[in-house]
C-alpha cells in the first residue's frame, strides 16, 4: 500500500521504519507539508497515496504565537490546509494527529495555559471533520504521550540535533500506532475472541467456590473483573464475536450469568458457549466449524499456561493473549489486544449486529440437523433475496466484503472504497449487491457481484458471498437474475473466472455447477468460463424468493 507522511518536523525515521512494510512517500525538504498540499502538481498528488498521515508537532505550530487568539489563528490556518487534503483525496484514508503541546513557556500560575486551549481547539476541529467525512480519522498521538509521559516520549537532544522531537520510545510507539491504523484501514481484523471463565471473567473457581465465593464486584478487588467485562462488551459492540471455552458444568456457569448481580456480560453476548471437559483446542476447532470461520481469525484468552500451551501447539493460527501475572492488568491486556488484533476505524451496521447474526445462524444449523433433506430445510427457511445495483450507503460494506471474504470468493480481488466508487462511475461496470433475510432473521448485505461489460460480453470480475449464507443456493438465484438483467441490455455472453487460493476451494466447481462452459485453464490454475444468454439451466436450484429492486443509475 502507498502511504504519504506529511509533517512539520523531521519524520524521516518514521518513514524509514514504515518503508519495510509500505511504499512510503514523504516530501523532500523540511517543513514543506503546506506547499506539498496546496500545489496540486506536487509529488504528493503524482504519488496518489492510499493513506496519508498528517503528523504535526503542536509546539512547532504555535511557537511564535503571543496570545491564545494568535495561536488559534495559526491552528485554523493549518487546519484549512488539511481540509484541502481531505477534499482532494476523497478515497484515501487521512489520519490527522491530535496535538500534544508541551508546556515550555514560563508563565505565572494565575494565567490560562494557552497550550491546553490550543490542544482542545485542535481536537474539536479535527473531530468536526471526522464526523463530516468518511475517510478522515484522528491519529491520537496525544493519547500515546499521556500514556507514556512527556519525559519519556520526547528527546531534546534529538530535537536540537535532527529536528526529531521524539525519543526512541516515542518514535517506536508512534510507528506501532501508525501500523495499527493502517492495517485497520486495510480491513485486516480478527473476528472471534474465545474466553475462559474461572480466574479470567471472574476470580476463583465457580465449581468450588460457588456464586457467592467468586471475585466479582463493583468496588475494590473484584472490580478488576467487572472492568474487564465492561471492555469485553465494548469490544463486542465493535463487531467482535465472543465465545466461551471453559472447563465447568454448564449449570454452574448459567447460575453466574443469571444470578450474579455484578456480571456485566449476559449469556446473549456470547455466540457459542462451551462449558465442558473437552480439551480446549477441540472446543475452539468446534466453534470455528459452527461459525464457519477460519482459525486464523481467532484470539484466545486463558489464565492457565497449560491451556495456552495446548492451544498454541495444536492450533498455530490462533492468537493467544499474554495473560498478566498481575490481574490488575487484565483490562490493559484487552486494550492492547484491541489495538493489535481488533482495531476498528468505523463500525458498520453489520458490525454492531454481528453477535445476533451469528446466533441466528446457529439456530439455522440446528433446524437443519432436524430437517429431512437439505432442500426441504432450505425451503423451510423462506429465504428472500433483495437484489439491486449498489447504493451509495453500501460502498463501505462492499469494500469491506472484498477484503474479508475468502471462501466464497471466485477471484479474491480486494477493493478499497475508492476503487468501488471509480467503478460505480464507469458506464461499463455493474455492481450488484444482495441482502438476505429468512424466518430466523436478517443477514444484511451478504453478496456482491461485479460485472464489466465489454462489447456483447459481461465479464464477472468479482462474485463473493459471506460464508454465513453459503450452501443455500442463493448464488443460483443471484446469477440467474443478473444474467436476465444484462440480457435485456443486449448482452449475449457472460464470462466467469475462478482464481484458486488456499481458501476458496468451496467454489472451485461453482461455474460448472451453474452450467457455464470451461473455456480455458491458465498456467496459474485459474479458469475462464462462459455461458450464452439467455441461459436455460435446469440444474440450478431456485429455493429462494428474489426481490429485484430496480435503482435508477
Amino acid at each position, binding site marked *: 500500500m502507498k502511504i504519504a507522511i506529511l509533517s512539520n518536523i523531521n519524520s524521516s525515521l518514521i518513514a524509514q521504519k514504515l518503508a519495510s512494510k509500505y511504499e512510503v512517500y514523504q516530501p523532500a525538504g523540511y517543513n514543506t507539508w503546506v506547499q506539498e498540499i496546496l500545489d496540486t502538481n506536487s509529488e504528493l498528488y503524482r504519488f496518489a497515496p492510499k493513506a496519508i498521515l498528517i503528523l504535526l508537532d503542536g509546539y512547532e505550530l504555535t511557537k511564535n504565537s503571543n496570545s491564545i487568539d494568535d495561536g488559534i489563528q495559526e491552528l485554523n490556518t493549518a487546519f484549512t490546509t488539511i481540509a484541502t487534503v481531505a477534499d482532494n483525496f476523497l478515497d484515501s484514508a487521512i489520519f490527522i494527529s491530535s496535538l500534544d503541546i508541551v508546556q515550555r513557556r514560563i508563565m505565572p500560575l494565575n494565567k490560562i495555559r494557552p497550550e491546553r486551549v490550543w490542544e482542545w481547539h485542535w481536537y474539536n476541529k479535527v473531530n468536526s471533520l471526522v464526523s463530516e467525512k468518511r475517510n478522515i480519522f484522528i491519529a491520537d498521538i496525544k493519547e500515546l504521550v499521556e500514556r507514556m509521559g512527556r519525559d519519556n516520549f520526547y528527546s531534546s537532544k*534529538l530535537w536540537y*540535533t*535532527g529536528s526529531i522531537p521524539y525519543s*526512541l520510545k516515542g518514535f517506536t510507539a508512534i510507528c506501532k500506532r501508525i501500523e495499527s491504523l493502517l492495517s485497520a484501514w486495510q480491513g485486516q481484523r480478527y473476528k472471534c475472541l474465545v474466553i475462559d471463565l474461572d480466574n479470567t471473567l471472574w476470580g476463583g473457581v465457580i465449581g468450588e467456590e460457588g456464586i457467592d465465593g467468586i471475585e466479582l464486584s463493583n468496588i475494590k478487588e473484584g472490580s478488576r473483573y467487572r472492568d474487564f467485562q465492561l471492555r469485553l462488551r465494548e469490544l463486542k459492540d465493535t463487531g467482535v464475536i465472543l465465545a466461551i471455552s471453559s472447563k465447568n458444568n454448564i449449570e454452574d456457569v448459567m447460575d453466574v450469568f443469571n444470578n450474579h448481580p455484578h456480571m456485566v456480560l449476559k449469556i446473549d453476548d456470547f455466540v457459542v458457549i462451551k462449558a465442558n471437559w473437552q480439551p480446549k483446542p477441540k472446543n475452539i476447532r468446534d466453534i470455528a466449524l459452527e461459525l464457519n470461520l477460519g482459525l486464523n481469525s481467532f484470539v484466545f484468552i486463558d489464565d492457565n499456561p497449560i491451556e495456552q500451551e495446548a492451544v498454541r501447539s495444536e492450533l498455530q493460527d490462533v492468537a493467544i493473549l499474554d495473560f498478566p501475572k498481575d490481574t490488575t492488568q487484565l483490562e490493559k491486556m484487552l486494550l492492547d489486544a484491541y489495538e493489535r488484533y481488533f482495531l476498528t476505524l468505523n463500525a458498520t451496521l453489520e458490525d454492531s449486529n454481528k453477535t445476533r447474526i451469528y446466533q441466528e445462524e446457529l439456530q439455522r444449523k440446528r433446524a437443519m440437523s432436524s430437517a429431512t433433506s437439505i432442500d426441504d430445510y432450505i425451503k423451510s427457511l423462506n429465504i428472500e433475496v433483495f437484489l439491486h445495483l449498489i447504493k451509495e450507503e453500501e460502498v463501505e460494506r462492499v469494500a469491506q466484503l472484498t477484503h474479508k471474504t475468502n471462501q466464497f470468493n471466485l477471484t479474491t480481488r480486494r477493493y478499497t472504497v475508492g476503487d468501488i466508487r471509480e467503478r460505480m462511475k464507469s458506464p461499463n461496470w455493474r455492481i450488484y449487491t444482495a441482502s438476505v433475510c429468512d424466518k430466523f432473521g436478517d443477514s444484511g448485505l451478504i453478496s456482491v457481484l461485479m460485472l464489466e461489460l465489454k462489447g456483447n460480453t459481461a465479464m464477472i470480475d468479482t462474485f463473493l458471498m459471506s460464508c454465513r449464507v453459503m450452501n443455500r443456493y442463493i448464488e443460483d438465484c443471484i446469477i440467474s437474475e443478473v444474467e436476465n438483467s444484462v440480457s435485456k441490455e443486449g448482452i449475449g455472453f457472460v464470462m466467469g473466472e475462478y482464481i484458486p487460493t488456499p481458501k476458496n476451494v468451496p467454489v472451485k466447481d461453482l461455474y460448472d455447477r451453474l452450467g457455464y462452459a470451461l473455456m480455458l485453464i491458465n498456467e496459474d490454475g485459474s479458469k475462464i468460463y462462459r455461458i450464452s444468454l439467455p441461459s436455460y439451466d435446469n440444474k440450478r436450484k431456485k429455493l429462494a424468493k428474489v426481490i429485484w429492486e430496480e435503482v435508477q443509475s
Partner: protein
Amino acid sequence: MKNFLEFVASVMGVYPSTISLETKYNTIPQWDSLMQIRLVMEIEDKYNVEIPIERIPELITLGDFYEYVKGANEH
C-alpha cells in the same frame, strides 16, 4: 566489541562483516546524517549511556562510539 558491531549493523541494516571500528561517518551510504542521529539514540538506549550534544560532532568512527560507551560504563 563483536556484540557492539553486531548491534550497530542491525541498526544500520548492513551485514556485520561490512563494518568495523574503523568505519567512518559518511563513508558508507547507510551512515548518513539521519543514521548518525539514530545511532546516538539507539546506543544511548541499548547501553544506558548519555551522549551530550557537545560530544556528538567528535563521534566520527564506530571506534569513537565504542570508546565512548566503554568509557561511560567504567565511570
